[in-house]
């Protein structure tokens, strides 16, 4: 029976599962859209993974990350729960050991991680605004009627990228429509949009950071060749897009689980894909805070609760 280490990244837009073997090689990776249903996405992801790898596997350890990491940790039984920054940095420096800068643009957030000698020395994330992240590209591609997969290739064909305001997604959109109506070719507008996003990223997320090569560009948006080219052009050096750029968070948390090497994994078994899980919520009326409590249930059994400030519910339901 082969031992595998699982990494699960439950993000706002996508849920990724990666399985590593004992040597740290990726055996399989799954990328699924979360569609606002993290439990279902996670179960689907595991199901796909198991159907490809076969049931004859032993899970040696599980790591979770992403904004849904707590939920995923309880659901799957995780040995290590880590934030996205650490997971991404670990994955990046595993694939490109001498990396000094990581640019990560995902569905709803973007981050920059500065590493020196393999250690994170600084990082920043976008603030409340999600302008300049994958969601915006998605939305614009849909508006222009081109599949997001073709976006990058089209942008590369641009002869003369037009200038588009990148500060705010709403401004960018009206600017794009304006350029469109003036008669600029689609390719030039797409390339202009990529450049605007890169400018916005470097001015906001990357503000004041010492961006040194080698630079790794990862996250779902790294699939976009137009963005890759815009970054390379703007930074004056070719950015490296690693092989597993879309699932780096999951990859990193699998590496962390492997590094931790638990004697017995907390994994709840491969049949968890077929079990009934549900979440519910209620407002606690214990005090004036009216905390919104979330509970995760398997059948009728409460697995975990969270959301309370005082610990009244979360402690009571400790698994």
């Amino acid at each position, binding site marked *: 029976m082969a031992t595998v280490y699982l990494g699960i990244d439950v993000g706002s837009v996508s849920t990724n599962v990666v399985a590593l073997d004992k040597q740290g090689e990726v055996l399989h990776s799954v990328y699924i859209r979360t569609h606002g249903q993290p439990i279902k996405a996670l179960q689907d992801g595991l199901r796909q993974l198991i159907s490809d790898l076969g049931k004859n596997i032993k899970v040696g350890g599980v790591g979770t990350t992403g*904004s849904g990491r707590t939920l995923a940790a309880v659901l799957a039984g995780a040995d290590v729960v*880590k*934030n*996205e*920054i*650490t997971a991404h940095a670990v994955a990046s420096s595993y694939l490109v050991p001498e990396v000094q800068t990581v640019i990560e643009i995902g569905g709803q957030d973007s981050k920059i991680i500065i590493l020196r*000698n*393999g*250690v*994170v*020395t*600084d*990082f920043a*994330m976008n*603030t*409340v605004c999600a302008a300049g992240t994958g969601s915006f590209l998605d939305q614009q591609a849909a508006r222009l009627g081109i599949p997001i997969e073709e976006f990058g290739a089209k942008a590369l064909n641009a002869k003369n990228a037009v200038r588009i305001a990148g500060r705010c997604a709403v401004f960018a959109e009206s600017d794009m429509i304006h350029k469109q109506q003036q008669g600029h070719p689609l390719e030039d507008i797409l390339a202009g949009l990529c450049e605007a996003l890169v400018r916005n990223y470097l001015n906001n997320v990357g503000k*004041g950071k010492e961006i040194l090569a080698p630079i790794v560009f990862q996250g779902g948006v790294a699939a976009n060749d137009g963005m890759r080219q815009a970054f390379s052009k703007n930074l004056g050096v070719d950015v490296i897009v690693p092989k597993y750029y879309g699932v780096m968070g999951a990859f990193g948390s699998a590496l962390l689980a492997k590094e931790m090497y638990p004697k017995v994994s907390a994994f709840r078994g491969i049949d968890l894909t077929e079990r009934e899980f549900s979440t519910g919520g209620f407002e606690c009326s214990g*005090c*004036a*805070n*009216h*905390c*919104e409590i979330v509970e995760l249930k398997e059948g009728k059994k409460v697995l975990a609760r969270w959301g309370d*400030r005082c610990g009244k519910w979360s402690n009571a339901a400790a698994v």
Partner: protein
Amino acid sequence: MEGKKWRLGVPRALFYYYYGSWWKAFFEDLGLEVLVSPPTSKEILDMGVSLAVVEACLPVKVYYGHAAWLSERVDALFVPRLVSVERKSFICPKLMGLPDMLRTALKPCPKIIDSTINLSRNPQKGLETAVRSVARTLGFSGSKVLKAKEKAEKCYKAWLAKQREDKLTAGTTENPINIGIVGHGYLLYDRYLGMDIPHKVQKLGSRVYLPENLTDDEVEEACRVLPKRLYWTLGQKTMGAVLNFMERDDIDGIIHLTAFGCGPDSMVGELAERYARRCGKPFLLLNLDEHTGEAGLNTRLEAFVDMLTRRCSA
């Protein structure tokens, strides 16, 4: 109100976190019944948000909530017009305007005691004038007021000393990292509004240092490297703490907590970050607003603590 025992409401918000002990001791020594609003809760926050002007920062909105909670339970509200609490430095104008803003927002509005406190020219004289003015509104004068002031000063000093000693030292890990957390007192100590960041950081296995652990002299001394004195009292305090923590080898990183929409902090935060970056001290800026979703905040805190831990062991 002559002869009647006053029931005075003091909102537990903004400068309560700096001078609450002074005020409470003073009024109680005068024989008043002091009612301090309960710690910030969702109810108080919601009340404040619905009453306050939209462009105010969250701490000011929370202040509205506390005042509203008190308004039906007291004879009068104590909302001093804080202009300056020390020589040549000032308090944010939004706070100076509190009494007027509350009068238009609270319906019905109880009597508001809004004596001006301005110590910018002559701290000692300014304080005496302010204290006499507050006392006069309540119907007190003479030696009784002086006695109450003395008592209040004593209580305040004792409270300051206690705060200096209060360190959030974690006993959970063997070699904890040390983090300095700076920001306005009403964010650091209001556990609901400020999302309880100091305790959160402590729970992640770190030892926490706060600006209140420093003496005024230490703050002033640290600020000497600045080309000029900061105009804002709280800005000066924040900057002094950042500069002090920055120079110390026993502090591994600094977290600056600010409220979204804070005018003074938009400048001070940038200044602090530049100084910290120049000397290579890890610095994390956290911006708080109305959202109660803590996921984003926790991610940043965890990542920061992880980073410091890995840096220290590398």
